[in-house]
């Protein structure tokens, strides 16, 4: 990891310094954690002061905030959404349910471990985490981008087979995603 950081060119360092100030979060309420997002966005906690804005469509978003448990039905949409987002993209797993199923560990309907399906940048533990925790995790993400460590999105291009295998296991069949990940990786030269 350290080697990689020192390899960054000056331009990349400046780029990280500027782009960390603008992170757009996809407005997707996947679970109950969505209830703490309005307070985070609005007057009391106001995450726009860090340049974090809710965005409507996956094409424009940088952060995919998974707010809580994902039922298998939603997980399918989340994978589609994730693939539509433009790299670099960061996934934040919010709440215990994304870490190990949390409260719904024995439910037949929710997935248990998010990083099997898409690469996760940071997790927020708790059920449910407070708005302060969301802001703290965003700050952590901002620091990671600044240090050049927020590279988990590359993992999806490099280890696509691993993710695809898990997705297909959970969806019990192939998933049609409209995006050719490997061709994209070659086209945009992602290593």
């Amino acid at each position, binding site marked *: 990891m350290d080697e990689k950081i020192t390899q960054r060119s000056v331009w990349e360092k400046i*780029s990280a310094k*500027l*782009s960390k*100030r*603008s*992170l*757009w979060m996809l*407005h997707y309420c996947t679970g109950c954690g969505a209830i703490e997002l309005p307070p985070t966005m*609005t*007057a009391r906690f*106001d995450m*726009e*002061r860090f*340049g974090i*804005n809710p965005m*409507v*469509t*996956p*094409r*424009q978003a*940088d952060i995919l905030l998974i707010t809580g448990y994902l039922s298998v039905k939603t997980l399918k949409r989340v994978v589609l959404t994730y693939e*539509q*987002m*433009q*790299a*670099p993209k960061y996934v934040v797993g919010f709440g215990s349910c994304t870490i190990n199923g949390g409260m719904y560990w024995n439910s037949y309907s929710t997935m248990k471990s998010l990083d099997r399906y898409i690469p996760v940048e940071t997790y927020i533990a708790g059920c449910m985490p407070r708005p302060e925790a969301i802001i703290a995790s965003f700050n952590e993400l901002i620091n990671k981008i600044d240090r050049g460590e927020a590279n988990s999105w590359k993992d999806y291009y490099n280890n696509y087979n691993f993710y695809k295998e898990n997705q297909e296991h959970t969806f019990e069949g192939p998933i049609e995603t409209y*995006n050719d990940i490997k061709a*994209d990786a070659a086209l*945009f030269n*992602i290593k």
Partner: protein
Amino acid sequence: MNTVLWIVFLPILLFVIGTFMLGYSRKYVARIERRYGPPIQQVFYDIFKLMSKKTNISHGWMHDFAILMLLGGTLLTMYFVPVPGFHFFAQYGDMLVIMYILLIPALGMALGVGETANPNGSIGISRALMMLAGYDIPFVLTFIGFAMINHTTSMYELIQVQQAGGFAGWGLISQPLLGIAALIALQGMLGEKPFEVMVAPHEIATGPMTEMGGKFLGIMMIQHAISIVVELTIYINLFLGGAVNWFDYLLKLFILFTALISVNAVFGRFRTDDAVRFMWKIPLPLAIIGILFIIF
């Protein structure tokens, strides 16, 4: 030589003004909403972030080309609108040319969005074109009225006429009906609320921008930043007596923009049909009455 410098630096200058104005509007609205708000240079960060995205999914060459058409149309308009110290192109193209090329960005957007084949985008663009029909007619009419009084269609000469008359010579003072009609139409032209339905996130997932990400959205934001300055400048030149120097110009920009975003902050948005109806019910009759006053 001076002209060449202007041609090179004018886009950059207006872009910087535009980004800071957008940042200011976000901060201003945030304060009304009792928030702290983003830093004023936030829009610059956003554009930089978008331009440095690693992947940019394109939907075919028309998509790429239309985005350039969008930016090109706005830049072209920009050169024909006189700003203090620079009116080189303004003597070659009058107001009619400006009204004509102002439509190019909208058409470019329509082409590009059509190529993305996203229904939300198509709905958004059809609304944007409908709104165009709503605000463009009153705006053109106010201009025709103005040209009739002064017997010229050149924007530069109109500024000269107004400045010769002092404060009372301002278009807004001498022809208040036309001035108000154009002000309302300007609100629609800028796409501020209540005439914002074509990019409404709740109704149609930001419409034309739905499939735009990365550099595409970055160019659209640059275009937006320049175009708000250009559109406000047109209004200043026609109705607020133009500007004598840059201090005067920036002050007028700032005051006019603040007035418009104050309305933006405390209103919801009209539906498309209501918006067009409103445009044709209030600014259009105002403009017609104003013209009738001039004729008789």
